[in-house]
């Protein structure tokens, strides 16, 4: 009896929920998704290029949406959210210390580097106050210089480096080489995690502290013992893709787009966004929407030619002897046939016998 009721309930749910929610065959989901995302997009253009007054940390609104859809390798400003395992901190202060550990510090941050081209010498003038606040000792710098096989002398606040001609495996150093060495010296990392420019402690909705960073380095932070791996997040789709794989990248795209939309109080059904993300990631790599990605890889020659770079596609396809089987919507409209969507999906198959 109970079993029977159970089945009835399941049937009812299936009838009410599932079959109601499933999309009919032939429904033009792509166009509907594009329109559903495009319409709020036009509204965003007008108001969200800048937030008046507030310094922009991470691009939001239309610029961010364009960034996501174009599948940019590195976002304009990448950002990470890092939760630290409970056992490693007690209060905000502890977290701030950890945050500082993450921040990448370069030699240029703690020392003024000047060059003497004639004598082929470099002079480092240490900024003591900075060093102190960043917790960097003289030994730290010296060891790094030693590691790079520099010949140097320490004179109080100053470190003098004499450049040997052999340094770049060349017979003689040019002025350009001196400058090159200076730049590489300036960029030498003393401590912290690469690409993490700034880290600060923020409170989340549940009053829990976490570290937000400018710049992102998923790989190293994931390996960091203090980091709560289950809640680590970056807004760089590319990093997620290369570290976790395509499925994670898809979810990240969905999450990021949804976030942009929510910020503007625009409601777009998540399934439209999911379709977009699916389309972008269906090949196992993150593709952009547009000439270099989705539209550029359409199957039909005519469909590609209709989008952008008409002549290029026509000429190229003629070189390879491509044929267009007229399966897409665009192609069929160009030719003047019924397109295979909606009412056009069904065909009457009638065998005539004579």
């Amino acid at each position, binding site marked *: 009896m109970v079993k029977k009721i159970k089945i009835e309930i399941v049937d009812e749910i299936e009838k009410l929920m599932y079959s109601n929610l499933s999309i009919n065959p032939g429904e033009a989901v792509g*166009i509907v998704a594009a329109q559903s995302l495009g319409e709020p997009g036009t509204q965003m253009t007008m108001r969200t290029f800048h937030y008046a007054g507030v310094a922009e940390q991470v691009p939001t609104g239309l610029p961010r949406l364009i960034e996501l859809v174009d599948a940019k390798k590195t976002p304009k400003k990448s950002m990470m959210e890092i939760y630290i395992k409970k056992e490693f901190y007690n209060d905000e202060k502890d977290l701030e210390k950890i945050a500082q550990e993450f921040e990448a510090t370069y030699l240029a941050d703690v020392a003024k580097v000047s060059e003497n081209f004639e004598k082929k010498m470099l002079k480092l003038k240490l900024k003591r106050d900075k060093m102190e606040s960043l917790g960097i000792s003289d030994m730290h710098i010296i060891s790094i210089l030693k590691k790079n096989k520099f010949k140097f002398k320490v004179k109080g606040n100053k470190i003098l480096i004499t450049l040997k001609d052999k340094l770049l495996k060349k017979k003689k150093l040019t002025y350009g080489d001196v400058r090159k060495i200076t730049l590489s010296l300036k960029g030498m990392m003393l401590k912290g995690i690469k690409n993490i420019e700034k880290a600060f402690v923020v409170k989340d909705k549940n009053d829990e502290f976490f570290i937000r960073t400018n710049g992102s380095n998923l790989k190293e932070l994931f390996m960091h013992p203090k980091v709560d791996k289950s809640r680590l997040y970056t807004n760089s789709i590319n990093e997620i893709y290369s570290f976790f794989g395509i499925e994670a990248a898809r979810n990240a795209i969905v999450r990021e787009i949804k976030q942009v939309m929510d910020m503007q109080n625009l409601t777009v059904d998540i399934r439209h966004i999911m379709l977009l993300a699916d389309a972008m990631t269906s090949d196992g790599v993150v593709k952009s929407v547009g000439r270099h990605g989705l539209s550029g890889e359409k199957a039909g020659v005519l469909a590609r030619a209709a989008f952008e770079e008409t002549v290029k596609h026509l000429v190229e396809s*003629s070189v390879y002897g491509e044929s267009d089987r007229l399966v897409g919507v665009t192609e069929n409209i160009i030719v003047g046939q019924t397109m295979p969507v909606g009412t056009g999906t069904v065909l009457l198959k009638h065998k005539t016998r004579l």
Partner: protein
Amino acid sequence: MSEVNKATVLKKEESVNSDLKQADIKIKKSGKVPIYLNGRLIGYCDDGETVANIIIEKRRLGLISHELNVAFHREENELYLYCDQGRARRPYIIVENGKSKLTPAVIEQIKKGELSWTKLLKLGIIEYLDAEEEDHHAYVAQSEEELTPEHTHLEIAPVSILGVVASMLPYAEYNSSPRITMACSMAKQALGTYALNHLIRMDSRAHVMFYPQEPLVKTIPYEILGMSERAAGQNFIVAVTSFYGYNMSDAVIVNKSAIDRGLGRSLFFKAYEIEERRYPGGQKDRFCIPPVGITGHRGEEAYRHLEEDGIIYPSADVNAGDVLVGKVSPPRFLEEINVFGVVEEKERESSLYMKTGDKGTVDSVLYTTSVSGNVLVKVRTYSLKIPEIGDKFASRHGQKGVIGMVVRQEDMPFTKEGIVPDLILNPHAIPSRMTVGHILEMLGGTAKCLSGKEIDGTTFSGTKEEEIRAILREYNFDEFGETELYDGYTGKKIKAKIFVGVIYYQKLHHLVSNKMHMRSRGPVQLLTHQPTEGRAREGGLRFGEMERDCLIGYGASMLIRERMLEESDKTQQLICVDCGYFAIHDYARNIDYCPLCKSNNIETVEMSYAFKLLVDEIKSLGIFPKIVLRDKA
């Protein structure tokens, strides 16, 4: 008001140099302060401030041209002189020691007509400043009361910050700026008397209003500019209320009886022209009634109004398709070979005819010669334009609207005195646009109607609201202009009090009858076989890419096919099954064959002409596209 300086630079630079010499201003070869004339270094002096002041002083004395302006940049220690064209300059009253040079005695002289504007300029009572001098040497007082010894100039009138058109708008200071901008651009579209010689002019399009009135609420510049003699609008009695939804979204209701009495009535003139052109080879066009049988003959009906010389007579009523001037042109190619292989000289019909949608009466015919010496005929038609649904009207406050319904006077709401409004404006048009001037003008118009006292709407100095209300009170009128109205249909009193007033309305030259357009079938383009575009070509409305996307979104495949193919550029093309090339029908042998592979295996395929064209264009790229045929489904 301001003027833009004109005349050539070089000429003036020379005269400035001689002026400076005459005025005893020495320009040295070296010194602390460089002097630039129109941005070019001409010399130096030691003290820029004094030199600038001397120049200004001598200019006021008339020793230096009044078109020269000075600017001493104190921060850079550089002296700039300007006399080139294109600088906007404004006149100011000169102030010395805190006293205006425009003294009551001078004003008295002006009133007597003894002093002209140029005289005032010469006497050094007023002067023109450009932006540079205004920035560096002027401290301008807005009114005579606020003058202090530091002031150097006095504003002639506060309105003078506005331009020609904006200064004619009443109570512009009560309106929001976008609405003023709109009112300015619409005032230029208002119908009135655009020129007094309009009856002999041959403008290609012209509107003339029947009974233009000067506005009840005017501004001082309006009078100065002589607009009251060439008014462009009428004073309407306006009620601000809704009316059965027929005035929603900026539509207005207009009183039918008012229209019958001549409200907003205008004439529309349209001139057509045609020339008897000469062609190389001594051939010439010929004005005549085109003989029957000529190529392109329009049927005798079309030529019925033409007189012997092939030109229409004045007072003929003409409709679309009627010929105004009959013309015959020589053949385009000297030798046209007809079907029988005989060279035949055939003339073409090339008359001047009325385009679709045109209608009117021939007003006058002008027979003259063109610049190139050919005979030129211009025909002007006129048609009466009575306000109808869709015609555009606007007040002088950026409040524009089209007629939404024409209502009989009996059905319009009325006051207990029996006043029936000419126009009903929707109250929603007011709050979000903040055109308070519109409301004030309505009150002012009413006050003038009641009292006959002049109500001045000049920006910043017009009649104050309180004065208008005092007049209304005096005449036992509601001082806020709120009136009890009675419903025209039922005769019952309308519960709410309704704001009624008299305000100047303009009829704008956007008339529906000149814009109305429809098409079911019609001409197609030669190249694409798709419907033409635009009203002039009797075109269709474009079913564009985004509209197409919507239909795809609905999955309406068949509808799309109908729009993009059936109703557009459907063709039947012959395709060679063997090689995929477009085949040919040979009429002589009555046979289809492929010109490429000579195959007779040909199929007829239905496609859009645009696709056929695309294939042709791809071929011209040097690519050979083949069409592979397959049975449907």
